[in-house]
């Protein structure tokens, strides 16, 4: 079985290489036959990759432990969903998943490529070439179908940290985003190679771009949620290199989303677009380099730099992408000049441009911070670490400015600022000042939350006000009632309102981040059963404890000793909840302790309890954290998803007034 799959990979390499060459030659010689044949090859490729993936799934489900991948990541104790999710628990499987996504996306993109004239075949060539590259990785470096010389009776099992619903969704969604960014990259390169630098590619790439952007964003947010509920350190974002690496392409991707809108509407920023799309894709590859390549010095993941062979391949690929892109941009520089010049920085165009600049600035800071310890070690031989406060302090002011622009942008006119837009902004400015005054009266004196809250209120009211103004205007001009006007506005200008919803979602996330960063309170306490402690207005009573052995035979990653405690939470005399923070000792693992935190959340704050230690007499140490407003991060994430779907919805009738 695994042999068939491995040989399938060789077929994949042959077919995708053929697809790349045939479509490229087809494009150069304008040969329809060659392009058609390349398209067929890409369908065959998708079938082959699907076959290989199905075989891996079958091997996992049938517990074929002779296959090393199955042996290393599963055991018979593992629940079925995690056997399936073991597909992407390891490196080799996640490459295969990425390739599978890419193969499917390519087939879909190929269906649309005919409408793009001479760009079409170049898109296919770029995507097929990328597929061939991934197949090489699977064959030469990271083969999921590697077999062991014998058949073990039991597998090692999955790392307990990965046994969490977040880990079922986080990697695939993230990889979908990475694979998705191949499409904007391929479109940009195709536009450059074919010389068709009208805004045609920008219009056609929009749904792809939103898709990739959404997948990557949601993937990151699920990762943050996983870190919060499973890693048990009380936070959701640690500025760890692995986290940063996935954030960087999302930031440049967000910048691209905005500059693409400018080219579509105003014919500006052509150079930005043909650079940002390939750059975002290259940064997705960089993210994998950080995760898999062993080049980044990280506290959590050990200090030694043992560069993996895959690192050279990935670095080579990144250099190739950026090199070809740079060459083509240079080659086409005349056609890339904007037809229109911007008139005033104080205009909507100016705001869009500033947005893109600030996003790229933040991306640059995160990139430099992530690579800084490595660079310092290589260049100066100095061992140092950069703590997370660097990112907060360096990106914070830029992020605040960015969010502030979100509030101004919908009000400010194209071309230049008018007195009317300033008048329209007045209520939001007042709302922002009132809220921060209120927060100040409540006793908050730190500048960060004061500024952040003021800006959030400013933007939220500004977005709301524009919607109400539109609604009233529509009602006046058409005579529709409020409900009808609301619906027609929403469906006719869904791109615009979808965009506003996304901005509102960003505000909710900002509120959550502000609350949990600025007002986190923490308490360390040692308690015997029957004792209580209080934190803020909660009283926490330690009821009892248990220590028991689970799945001892045969020994797998799922064999453990469970240390569990039961706590009752009271507030104002009434019982609120029962929390059961636990620790598990997995004696087979090198780092055997896995903490299971207990969280009680509501819209105002999360009570987050970590069991620090528990001895045989029941003496336990707890770390109790109050994280205000965290839930709003997850609510904002949901709204982000909804807003993007509304914005990306295919339009039905005539183009609506968007902005």
């Amino acid at each position, binding site marked *: 079985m695994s042999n068939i799959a491995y040989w399938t990979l060789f077929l994949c390499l042959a077919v995708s290489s053929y697809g790349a060459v045939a479509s490229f030659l087809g494009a150069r010689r304008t040969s329809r036959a060659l392009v058609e044949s390349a398209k067929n090859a890409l369908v065959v490729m998708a079938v082959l990759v699907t076959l290989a993936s199905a075989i891996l799934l079958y091997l996992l489900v049938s517990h074929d432990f002779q296959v090393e991948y199955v042996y290393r990541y599963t055991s018979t104790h593992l629940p079925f969903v995690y056997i399936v999710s073991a597909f992407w628990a390891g490196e080799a499987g996640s490459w295969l998943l990425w390739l599978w996504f890419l193969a499917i996306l390519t087939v879909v993109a190929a269906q649309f490529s005919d409408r793009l004239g001479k760009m079409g075949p170049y898109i296919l060539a770029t995507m097929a070439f990328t597929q061939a590259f991934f197949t090489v990785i699977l064959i030469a470096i990271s083969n999921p179908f590697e077999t062991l010389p014998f058949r073990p009776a039991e597998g090692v099992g999955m790392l307990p*940290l990965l046994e969490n619903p977040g880990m079922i969704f986080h990697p695939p969604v993230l990889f979908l985003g990475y694979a998705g960014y191949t499409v904007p990259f391929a479109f940009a390169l195709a536009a450059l190679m074919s010389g068709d630098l009208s805004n045609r590619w920008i219009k056609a790439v929009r749904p792809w771009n939103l898709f990739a952007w959404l997948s990557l964003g949601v993937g990151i947010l699920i990762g943050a949620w996983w870190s919060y509920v499973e890693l048990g350190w009380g936070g959701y974002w640690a500025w760890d290199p692995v986290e940063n690496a996935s954030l960087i392409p999302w930031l440049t991707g967000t910048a691209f989303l905005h500059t693409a809108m400018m080219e579509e509407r105003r014919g500006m920023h052509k150079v930005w677009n043909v650079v940002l799309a390939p750059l975002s894709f290259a940064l997705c590859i960089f993210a994998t380099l950080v995760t898999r390549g062993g080049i980044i010095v990280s506290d959590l993941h050990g200090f030694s730099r043992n560069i993996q062979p895959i690192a050279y391949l990935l670095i080579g690929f990144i250099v190739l992408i950026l090199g070809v892109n740079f060459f083509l941009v240079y080659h086409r520089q005349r056609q890339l000049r904007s037809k229109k010049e911007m*008139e005033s920085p104080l205009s909507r165009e100016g705001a869009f441009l500033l947005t893109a600049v600030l996003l790229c600035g933040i991306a640059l800071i995160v990139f430099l911070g992530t690579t800084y310890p490595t660079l310092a070690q290589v260049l100066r031989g*100095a061992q140092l670490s950069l703590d997370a406060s660097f990112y907060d302090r360096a*990106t914070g002011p830029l992020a605040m400015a960015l969010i502030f622009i979100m509030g101004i942008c919908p009000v400010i006119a*194209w071309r230049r600022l008018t007195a009317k837009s300033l008048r329209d902004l007045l209520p939001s400015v007042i709302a922002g000042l009132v809220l921060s005054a209120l927060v100040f009266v409540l006793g908050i004196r730190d500048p960060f939350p004061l500024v952040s809250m003021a800006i959030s209120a400013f933007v939220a009211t500004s977005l709301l006000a524009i919607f109400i103004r539109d609604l009233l205007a529509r009602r006046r001009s058409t005579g529709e009632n409020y409900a009808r006007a609301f619906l027609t506005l929403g469906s006719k200008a869904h791109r615009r309102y979808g965009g506003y919803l996304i901005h509102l979602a960003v505000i909710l996330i900002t509120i959550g981040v502000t609350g949990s960063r600025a007002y986190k309170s923490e308490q360390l306490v040692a308690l015997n059963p029957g004792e209580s402690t209080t934190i803020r207005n909660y009283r926490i009573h330690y009821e009892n404890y248990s220590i028991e052995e689970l799945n001892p035979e045969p020994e797998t990653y799922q064999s453990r000793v469970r240390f569990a405690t039961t706590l009752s939470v009271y507030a104002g005399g009434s019982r609120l909840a029962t929390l059961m923070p636990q620790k598990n000792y997995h004696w087979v693992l090198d780092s055997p302790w896995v903490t299971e935190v207990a969280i009680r959340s509501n819209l105002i704050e999360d009570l987050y309890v970590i069991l620090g230690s528990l001895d045989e007499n029941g003496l336990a140490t707890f770390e109790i954290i109050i994280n205000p407003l965290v839930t709003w991060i997850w609510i904002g994430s949901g709204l982000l998803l909804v807003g993007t779907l509304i914005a990306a919805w295919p339009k039905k009738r005539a183009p609506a007034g968007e902005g």
Partner: protein
Amino acid sequence: MSESSFASDTETPRRMAGGRMKFIIGGAIILVVIGWLIFSNVQGSTTPYLSVNELMAQGPSDRMVRVSGLVVGDTIDWDPQRMTLQFELADEGANLPVLYEGVRPDMFADGAQAVVEGKYATSGVLEATDLLLKCPSKYVEE
């Protein structure tokens, strides 16, 4: 904003020249701000790694430092009621006394590879604010 409000674009060359300058100045200001944000914060957030000998040679200071070494088993003194952890960190033949307040980390044991971050106080004790134990290389999967 309706479509019609910007349908007629008549650019005037006179404006463009003045506009250019504004953008160049604006862009330069942003670049300077970003550069300043990076450089001013890198200094404050960088913590050097020192060996125990290097730290002792430098003597007590108010600066945050990171020191790594092996935990010496029979010097561990853990008080669960007060949640203080005292131990010595051994590195290249020198021992450094460390005081840490907080939960005792799970992997904390004799011979564990630890990294402590804190200030080297005049009492000759490193008052640690952070105590990290190096993960044995297993935890590499996403």
